């Protein structure tokens, strides 16, 4: 099972350039998190939550890039905007979305896009959305892999002992 997971992850890494998922490592993080959901986890809702968290994070960075002073001497604005966007992400959990998914999505977006913003905000115009999509793909791949692994684990356990 571990070998299957590793192969699937390797295939994903191999094609990460094709998918624009430079932050492929997020898949491993997502995988680790999502496995904790267990065989009965709400994976689809987790995916939606993660995507919304990611969108909120992306919106926050775009707002930072467009409406506020640019790096490097803008830590205060980054703090405020990030805090506000994170606050909005947390607020969305109130409508039934998963908080952990929102946070992973938000964090994954920052991990993938914030370095671009920090290095050259002008790059965001062309590379921001693709990087966010790549991050989303990575996260969803991790989620799907986690789902597969759990499904396979459940099926295997059922065959071995019915438990």
């Amino acid at each position: 099972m571990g070998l299957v997971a590793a192969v699937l992850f390797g295939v994903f890494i191999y094609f990460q350039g094709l998918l624009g998922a430079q932050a492929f490592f997020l898949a491993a993080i997502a995988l680790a998190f999502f496995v904790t959901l267990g065989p009965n986890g709400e994976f689809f809702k987790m995916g939606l939550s993660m995507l919304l968290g990611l969108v909120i994070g992306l919106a926050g960075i775009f707002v930072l890039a467009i409406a506020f002073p640019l790096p490097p001497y803008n830590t205060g604005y980054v703090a405020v905007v990030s805090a506000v966007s994170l606050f909005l992400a947390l607020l969305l959990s109130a409508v039934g979305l998963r908080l952990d998914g929102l946070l992973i999505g938000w964090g994954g977006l920052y991990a993938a896009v914030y370095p671009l913003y920090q290095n050259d905000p002008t790059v965001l115009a062309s590379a921001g959305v693709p990087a966010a999509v790549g991050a989303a793909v990575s996260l969803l791949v991790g989620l799907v892999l986690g789902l597969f692994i759990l499904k396979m684990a459940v099926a295997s356990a059922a065959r071995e002992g019915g438990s």
Partner: protein
Amino acid sequence: MKNRCRIHKLVAVILGLLLVAANPLAAFSAGGNLSGIKDNELVLTTFDANGNVSGIQVLNHLRISGEGQVQVTDKSAYSLTSLRNLYGKEKLVVQDGQIAINTQVEGLKDIYYLATLDQSAVKDMKFPVNIDIQYFLDGQQVKPAELLGKSGHLKIVVTVENTTGTPKVLEFQNDQGETVSKEAVIFTPYVVSLSGWKFDNRYFDNVTAPGVGGESPEGVVTDVQGVTTVSWTIPLIPPSYPSKQYAVLEADGRNIQLDSFDIAIIPVLPESSQTDSLSGIKTAFEKLYSGFESIEQGVGAESKPDTLLYGFNTLLKGLGNERAEGTVINGLRQISSGIDSLYSNLVKIRMGIATPGFDPATFNAAQGKDAGGRSPGAKDAIDLVRSSVDKQLIPAVDAQQQLVAGLNGVIGNPADVGQTPSATTSLYNDINTLKSLAGSGPAADLISKAIIPKINVLSGNLSALEKGGQITTSAGQVDFPASLVAVKAGLGQVNDSLARTSAGLDQVVQGLGDVKADGTPVPVLLEGKPGTILFAMATIKDGSDALYQGVSGQVVPGLKKMQSGVAQIGEGASTAKVSLAAGLVDLSSAGAIKDSLKANVEAVDTFLGKPDGAQGSVIYVFRTAPVKPAAGGLTNGLIALVVLLGLLAALGRGQSTPVKMEA
């Protein structure tokens, strides 16, 4: 617990908002002191994938010195579509071509704003340096976008031209300390930097950046870690460098992709660490100038004494011509003419003395010519006379002497007597016999008084005729010098004299020399020198003619050519001197040109505009569009997202989660 958590979050949000709002509020505090502003502009012009200008942005850096709240008014010479403070919170207000900025300054304050020019201004924008980028693939010109994914020999030609040249009158001091004016086209010096053009070795091979002397600088090519980087530095600084140059990049490409390239144009007059050779060149020019000046002075002019041209002119005047009295050529002409005349007369004398080929044996006295029709010369005539004397006159006199002697014998002596008269007895014997026969009487008297005296006179006169003495005439006794002896002696003397004259004339003829039938002298050389007068005279005549012809036909033209050549040397020296003087002026003007260039550089201090009194600088950057495939990852990623969401929706829905949190 929930309420406390919400309160904390609310406090955090409010604090964050306050942080955002705090600084802008401070910007509106009381006024302060403004001590200086620096306005540094970077004008970024971007090209689209077709090579056309797509937009112009100006990144403006204002460095404000002062204390407290200040207001800075920057200027915008162009219509702007957007204006953004990049790193600060200050609000930028654009009104009537001015950008107002209120800010709080504590010592120094940096404000960076990005201004985007309106497309209407972009369309007709004129830059101080024209940029033209041409792309060629396998020799065919293509647009940059057409290169994507192609393979072949890529050539990129970037032509840059400084268009700032304007005529200007420079005033400076030359080496003599004189103020000199010179008009020159002065440019604003710009250095174009094509730096860090990167070519991925996966797509390019054989990357070169060749140069052409005086036209195109060679680029520096480095290959590090799979990327070949090419850089050029092009100084557009006339007169040291051409105002228009180009950079060439060539490479073999496969599946071509190009990064964006930057071309920076910097107004600068760079100081060089090159050893100053200008002073050495100037010294050499000055020496060269001095040398040409000496040549020019030495060559001089026809009217300037102690110069070559004056000397040539004097020499040519002295040589003169045939008609100019008192000149060398006229004198040579006269000498030649005199020698010709002398030679001609000597030939005549020679011909008058002895006719060449005259044959005295065939001389016809009646015609005065020999059988060949030649008239005798003086010596020929003398020889003819001598021959006549020898062969005719002297024998004739001898015959006369014999005749007189015979007559004297017939007359006999007065004392002849006693012989019986006969045919052989003397007349005296016969008269004396007759007288003695006559005895006395008239017959004897007639004989004694008439016949014998007459016979005595006849005998005496015959004797005088033969030998000289006195003869008896009716007037008495008179001397008779023309005796036959005297005549013969005279003829001998005449003959001797004629012989000596002939010998003398022979000497003269030998001295003059033999003459050919055509009147030219027979060449005679003695010890390598002319052996006769006529040959010598002919030689002198030829020599004088040659001298005359040489002087008039060769020396004078040669001198005139020399004079012309020297004049040309003088003109060349003068021209070279003028050129060198211009060169020296150019060298002397180098400082003035450099000062003008510096002034022009300092004048280039803004593009968009700058606050009054601000110290400005401007750099232009032209950026090409990258030639790369569209971000395919985005589409693929979106597709993957849909697929993954579909999978999750199909396999991961409808199950309760073990962990659930609410905000």
